[in-house]
């Protein structure tokens, strides 16, 4: 039996923590229905007008599309450059491997703003105009390590046997990749793509300095939050929470068959 220690004590503390995690979100949801011009008390009555206002706000709708576009681009970039990196790191020894690994992981510990500063100076030096594509390149660079880490872990788990067997049977590099490697990493790759897309959708730090005329959803929200004029913000927040919940539940159930529950992914 895995359990040890004082169970009631642990359970009550754990419940308190869960409450702590959910209370603020529930508050927002409640206030999104508040029939008041201010965000906050008093609670006047239930209304859906903030949702109506939100859904007719073309700026928000437009930025949602932009976020999807950027997200998809980020996923394509991460896979295109991250997959080869993971394979190279798992299979080969080469001079500078340690340095390369550190550079790849660096964006995780860097403040997004700093990554943004570096890329911004790069773009400006090249006289590149800021746009959704500059955001895509920046986020792609920062999020590539997710694909690399997930695929690398899966490759290590897979072991060498199958690819050795394939090569031993006369397969060339492409055939090994197509028949052994790719089928093996499919689930990890898909998971990494999902995570990268989700993070990109919510990303603001790197995006902040690299945005041109078109805004992503977080950037639009940011200006909304700074002004804090109407409780439309609460409605937007609630919708985002709802969409996240739906996507997560779908994603978790989809990958559950592959034994995803219990792998504490971050």
């Amino acid at each position, binding site marked *: 039996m895995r359990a040890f220690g004082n169970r009631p004590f642990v359970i009550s503390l754990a419940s308190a923590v869960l409450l702590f995690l959910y209370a603020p979100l529930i508050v927002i949801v409640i206030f999104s229905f508040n029939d008041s011009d201010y965000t906050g008390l008093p609670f006047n009555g239930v209304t859906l007008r903030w949702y109506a206002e939100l859904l007719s706000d073309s700026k928000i709708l437009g930025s949602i599309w932009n976020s999807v576009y950027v997200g998809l681009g980020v996923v394509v970039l991460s896979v295109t450059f991250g997959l080869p990196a993971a394979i190279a790191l798992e299979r080969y020894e080469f001079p500078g491997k340690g340095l390369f690994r550190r550079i790849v992981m660096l964006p995780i510990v860097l403040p997004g703003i700093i990554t943004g500063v570096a890329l911004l100076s790069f773009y400006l030096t090249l006289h590149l105009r800021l746009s959704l594509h500059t955001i895509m390149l920046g986020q792609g660079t920062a999020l590539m390590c997710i694909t690399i880490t997930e695929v690398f872990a899966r490759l290590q788990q897979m072991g060498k046997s199958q690819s050795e067997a394939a090569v031993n049977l*006369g397969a060339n590099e492409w055939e090994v990749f197509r028949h*052994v490697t790719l*089928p093996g990493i499919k689930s990890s790759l898909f998971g990494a793509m999902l995570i990268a897309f989700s993070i990109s959708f919510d990303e603001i730090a790197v995006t902040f300095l690299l945005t041109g005329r078109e805004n992503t959803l977080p950037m639009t929200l940011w200006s909304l939050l700074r002004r804090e004029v109407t409780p439309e913000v609460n409605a937007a927040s609630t919708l985002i929470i709802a969409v996240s919940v739906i996507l997560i539940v779908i994603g978790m159930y989809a990958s559950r068959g592959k034994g995803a529950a219990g792998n504490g992914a971050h």
Partner: protein
Amino acid sequence: MTTGIELRDLRKKYDGHGGGAGAWAVDGVDMQIGRGQFVTLLGPSGCGKTTTLRMIAGFETPSSGEILRDGVDITDQPVTDREMRMVFQDFALFPNMSVAENVAFGLKTRRMKGRFDAAQIRRKVGEYLDLVRLGSHADKRPHQLSGGQKQRVALARALITDPEVVLFDEPLGSLDAHLRKVMQVELIRLHRELGKTFIYVTHDQDEAMAMSDAIAVMNAGKVQQFGTPREIYDRPTSRYVAGFIGHAHIVEATVADSGSSGMVVRLANGETVRLADPANVAKGASVGLMLRAEDLSLARPGEGELHGEVADSLYRGEYVEYVVELKGGAGTVHVHEPTDLEPFAHGAAVALKVNPQKAHVVGGAA
């Protein structure tokens, strides 16, 4: 020009972690494996047998030394080109393909393009699945098979491309005892029918003895002895091999007399044993006297060359194993006696009759 596979002073070192000196996994291996032979690399874990096999296959690059095939240096040849199919210990079947697709894999690669059409491939797959008696499982997925079935799929997959050389990396290691024996017979049969070179790696000496034309007993990266099973068993050339194979005890002795018709050795307790083996050892030299449990028999005191006391007896089903302490602390030996014999009591004084044809000496002092 020699046919078969030749290993010349093969060495492999792995880098140690953190810049320290690594260990020599294979430390100077020379070997000649003739065409069509069934050769086994036998030894405990870490002796270098698997590393050697993997170098022959091309998965590892030797640190130094050459691998020749029919006289040609193939040390730098890619794995893909060698056409020495390997049967892996963990089977290495492709989980995303059916049994039939797994077996057909080697025929469908680019380098085999145009050699077989789809119908021929299907026929060959059926032929080889029947050969390993899995004809009815063609459309199953690997995860639906038992261990023994998976191993047979791996075998069919390796054999279907008709390679000259088949490599086996402890293929029966994960099967239960009964299945292992069944598969051993299968492998002997296949070897006889197909006439290919089999290079086999195992730590199981019974397996090696049963199947091989020749065995290379390995330890610490070196080949201790290379010979037929009989030679290894009856005439080990080193203490290590003598101790590794079978139930043998090495008792210290000195050569009292040696000539063309045999030799006499004297134990620490003064007793002597006559051997029919005219080994070239000088009089007075220290040797280890190898006494196999099945070559000794117990008798009443005075009726044998050696004397001692029964320390223990263990019922083994097939025989009773007696642990006998030799007189004067000369050593301990095990003796196997038939189970229907009058049992010897614990502590009883006994004599030991030594079969002079079977007794054998191995090198210097311990």
